[in-house]
């Protein structure tokens, strides 16, 4: 996935950061448990947000110390949340597989070879996940083909293209029965999906202009030499801020029993921080950017 949904770690309390870490490791553990060792490589920050959101209705998740393939000695704390973990892991596999397929479709034959290989490696995991969530898998295929069609038509609407993707993300909680939980979560995830799409479009704008590839921002704002004007960037920031507001208003309606600090941090602080990093071009060196944050935090501690 993209990795744009992250907390501001420097403003997170130590126990909240530990909970975030446990959710990330818990998702990795669930992927390994349900879809084999290979699927562990699909763990990502965006789906950790989904795991945290789904777990927020429970007062606390049991934490188990599990073996970690990235660590030779010692074990890592993983939060275990039965049914929620299984659904989040299935969504992760389906979304990552669809993204790989999308890359195969977008790239030239030679450049698409690595993605084809990865698709082949994850085909069994995908089949199993789509058997578990058949409606979600079908919706992904439907929405991505709608998105592909919009790209073919060179649609200038950032709303229509972002909507096609955001609907997929909001469907990750479609299995929840209680509307008091499902509806606010759907709104949060819809605007998260919208944010992901717009941040990715802005991040790729220069490259897409160079390659003459489709990017909704190219047709909506007509940038000169791959860069948006200051006024257009301001406008785009206001659009993402409105998404943050709507996601935040939905979060207030959730009966949060846990993870409140983390979710608020990710929505109100993480989204704007990531978007301003993307705007300034720093997010391309994303690992560097976030590692700097962690180092700063470690020094403070």
């Amino acid at each position: 996935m993209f990795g744009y949904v992250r907390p501001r770690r420097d403003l997170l309390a130590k126990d909240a950061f530990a909970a975030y870490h446990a959710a990330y490791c818990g998702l990795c553990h669930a992927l390994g448990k349900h879809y084999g060792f290979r699927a562990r490589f699909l763990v990502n920050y965006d789906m950790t947000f989904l795991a945290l959101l789904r777990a927020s209705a429970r007062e606390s998740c049991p934490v188990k110390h599990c073996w970690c393939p990235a660590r030779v000695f010692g074990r890592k704390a993983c939060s275990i949340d039965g049914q929620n973990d299984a659904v989040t892991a299935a969504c992760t596999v389906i979304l990552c597989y669809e993204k790989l397929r999308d890359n195969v479709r977008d790239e030239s034959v030679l450049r698409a070879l690595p993605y084809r290989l990865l698709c082949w490696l994850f085909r069994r995991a995908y089949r199993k996940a789509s058997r578990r969530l058949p409606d979600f898998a079908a919706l992904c295929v439907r929405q991505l083909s709608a998105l592909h069609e919009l790209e073919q038509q060179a649609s200038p609407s950032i709303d229509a293209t972002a909507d096609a993707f955001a609907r997929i993300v909001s469907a990750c909680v479609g299995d929840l029965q209680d509307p008091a939980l499902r509806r606010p979560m759907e709104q949060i995830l819809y605007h998260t999906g919208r944010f992901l799409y717009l941040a990715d479009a802005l991040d790729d704008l220069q490259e897409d202009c160079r390659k003459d590839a489709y990017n909704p921002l190219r047709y909506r704002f007509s940038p000169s030499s791959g860069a948006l004007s200051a006024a257009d960037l301001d406008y785009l920031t206001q659009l993402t801020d409105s998404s943050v507001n709507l996601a935040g208003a939905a979060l207030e309606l959730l009966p949060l029993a846990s993870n409140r600090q983390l979710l608020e941090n990710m929505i109100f602080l993480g989204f704007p921080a990531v978007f301003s990093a993307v705007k300034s071009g720093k997010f391309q060196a994303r690992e560097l950017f976030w590692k700097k944050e962690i180092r700063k935090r470690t020094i403070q501690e």
Partner: protein
Amino acid sequence: MKDPYEVLGVSRTASDSEIKTAYRELVKKYHPDNYANNPLADLASEKMKEVNEAYDAITRTRGSQSGSYQNGSYQSSGYQSGGYQSGSYSYGGGNGGASYAQVRAYINANQLDAAESILNTAPNRDGEWYYLKGTIAYRRGWLDEARQHYQTACAMVPSNFEYQNALRTVQGGYTPYRQTNYQRSDMDEACNLCNALLCLNCLCGGCR
């Protein structure tokens, strides 16, 4: 019914003023202004009702015990569960009595496709048409389109406060309650500036 103390998030031993503070915080949080045109306005209204009932229940119990507490819960009169009051708008197209009031009713019921199909058959496009079109887009989460329609509506009828409020909301001018807690960085900077000025004052001999 849920435990009223649990709804307000206070302990049973909390003082009257603590309960009142918790109640006011929750009223601010679920205030209809925070959910104007929001598809979740009905959930916010339910929460507000729950909070009011809990506060009334507590004040009633405590009032009967001490006989001194006045019941003063938030009066939600005039609050139409985040929806519109069907006005007398009508575009007078003469096609079967379809009107903007009907579109508003569909929007309130979250039937956005039905609302849009009526709008699309309207013979002329005035400020109200653009406002309603923007509201449908806003409810769908199509914020770019919503903003453009609201801007057109405001340009056509500059004196309409409803259109102006809608535009302000979509421009991010109105932030939800919680976010105000996350805008501390500016405040911190302001405090830092005050501290710096105080220190400077001390250093310059202002404290003699």
